[in-house]
């Protein structure tokens, strides 16, 4: 899919339940699969990747839709932890 659309045009958005899982998924789409088992094994894509709860996403989404679809989960998920994990991965691997 990255080849088809050009990796610079793609954004990956995650909905993971907590920081570590978000980080692991983010690492897979940026640096390749760290467990060396999945379909993306060994491919360093460096795609842009965010969690749906991060402000970069929230700020661009229609606020009424965001409120209806996601806002409650901000109270449930550890957004700070998720954000920390995500930016670590982005800083290290993201190419775009």
């Amino acid at each position: 899919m990255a080849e088809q659309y050009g990796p610079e045009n793609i954004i990956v958005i995650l909905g993971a339940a907590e920081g570590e899982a978000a980080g692991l998924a983010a690492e897979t789409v940026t640096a390749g699969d760290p467990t060396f088992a999945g379909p993306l094994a060994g491919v360093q894509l460096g795609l842009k990747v965010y969690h749906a709860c991060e402000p970069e996403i929230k700020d661009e989404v229609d606020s009424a839709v965001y409120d209806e679809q996601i806002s409650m989960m901000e109270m449930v998920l550890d957004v700070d932890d998720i954000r920390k994990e995500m930016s670590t991965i982005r800083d290290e691997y993201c190419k775009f």
Partner: protein
Amino acid sequence: MYSVLKGASYILAHTPDMVIHNGTTQTTQRTIDPDSEYLKNLDKSLRSYDECKAYLPNQTYIGNITPDELAGYAQPWYQQKSDYIQREGRFGEIMPEDEFIGLIAICDVFDLVKLESQFAVSVKKKLESHSLIDPKFLSVFDKNFELSEINGFIADEHAEPLYYGGMIVGCIKAAHDIDHSLSAHVIFENLVSKASCVLSLLHLIDKNHIGKEDIEYVIECSEEACGDMNQRGGGNFAKAAAEIAGLVNATGSDIRGFCAGPTHALIHAAAMVKAGTFKHVIVAAGGSTAKLGMNGKDHVGKGIPILEDCVAGFAILVSANDGVSPEINTDIVGRHTVGTGSSPQNVISSLTASALEKAGLKLTDIDKYTVEMQNPDITKPAGAGNVPEANYKMIGALAAMRIEIEKSQLADFVSEHGMVGWAPTQGHIPSGVPYLGFARQELMDKKINRVMVIGKGSLFLGRMTNLFDGVSFVLQQNSGAGQEETVSEDKIRKLIAASLKDFAKHLQEDEG
């Protein structure tokens, strides 16, 4: 009059060899990378039967430790020493793998399970002393095979090997040469599901003072499908399990709904009983080999033992109102409908607040919510977080959005209305039902007034819809209206007498 929750049973079968050979995480890994370090070192991460028995969440599942007591132990629980090591529990047992293989052989009525002679002899001896296994079944262990014959079935006829202690001790043959729905793999999964369902039924009958002949209907709600290539999900696990369990007066059927299956099935059972169609209905399910070691890579990678090493089962008895047992209030039923959508707040709201509001109740009027009770020891290292806690936070967040509680009281709401999770990640097994045994007791002891049972299912995994699903209902203290039969008989007599008197009076008046 509402139907009641009359009893519940819970069983585990410790199956470490099935983790290696039948769990899909491991079988998939074997397909893509048979020489992987994970597979090579897997056996070092498996627990012994004694370790499995001493594991606090397992002891909670079979009823020896209450959820409150479990919450008193520091997490992770696999690091805790335990004084609870019993095989038998208030609700059931933890069966070792060899006996469970024996039970699988008993559940096979098509001569597909072949056991090696020495193994068969030793299992027969062990099952002879199992109080719930009917001795009439033990003759299956007299017809057995040499290892060379079994190896032949595996090599030449695509039979699935049965392992115990790392050694081949038998096999399960395909029931058809070509039909994929009757392949050895499918028959294996289905017999495991059937056997664990049967064991749950036997414990339910044993522990709740009800006769096998009193059961009229069984609803099975696991996530397997049995049938042949012309009717792949034809069924009927319920009747197949009822047959082995000796429920001679029962028929039954299967209800499917992924992890929401058990709650759907309980609503069906409650409605059947309330309508007077049947007096005693059992909702039961066995477990799944596919999910054994599902998160094993994460566990092994973090130096944690493989905690998903048990096939689980449960059975719930729903009966006509006895005046004592907790009532299943089918007037408070939550539903995730086609139109609900998938936003988490809509999902949780449809299952809780919307249903409660109609009955004039608030979220805080429910003492305990029983949600997806997955054991956090298993899910946290796998990146799925603490699943029950997340559910409680969602309900609490909803209560805050509805201004039933202050936002600052969210943590209190979670600890007051929630519980820690203790159930194995066997899909439908953790979904609402693991607490019902304890809930029955706590409601009868009048420690709590109302419990909400919530089942949620990931329908999108079946690729037929993108929809999510869920249903819920309320369990409440018995109103104490007394036994249905005695009350109604007495009442009817009085009513007849009163109306006859009335009638006579009218006649007199007319004449006069």
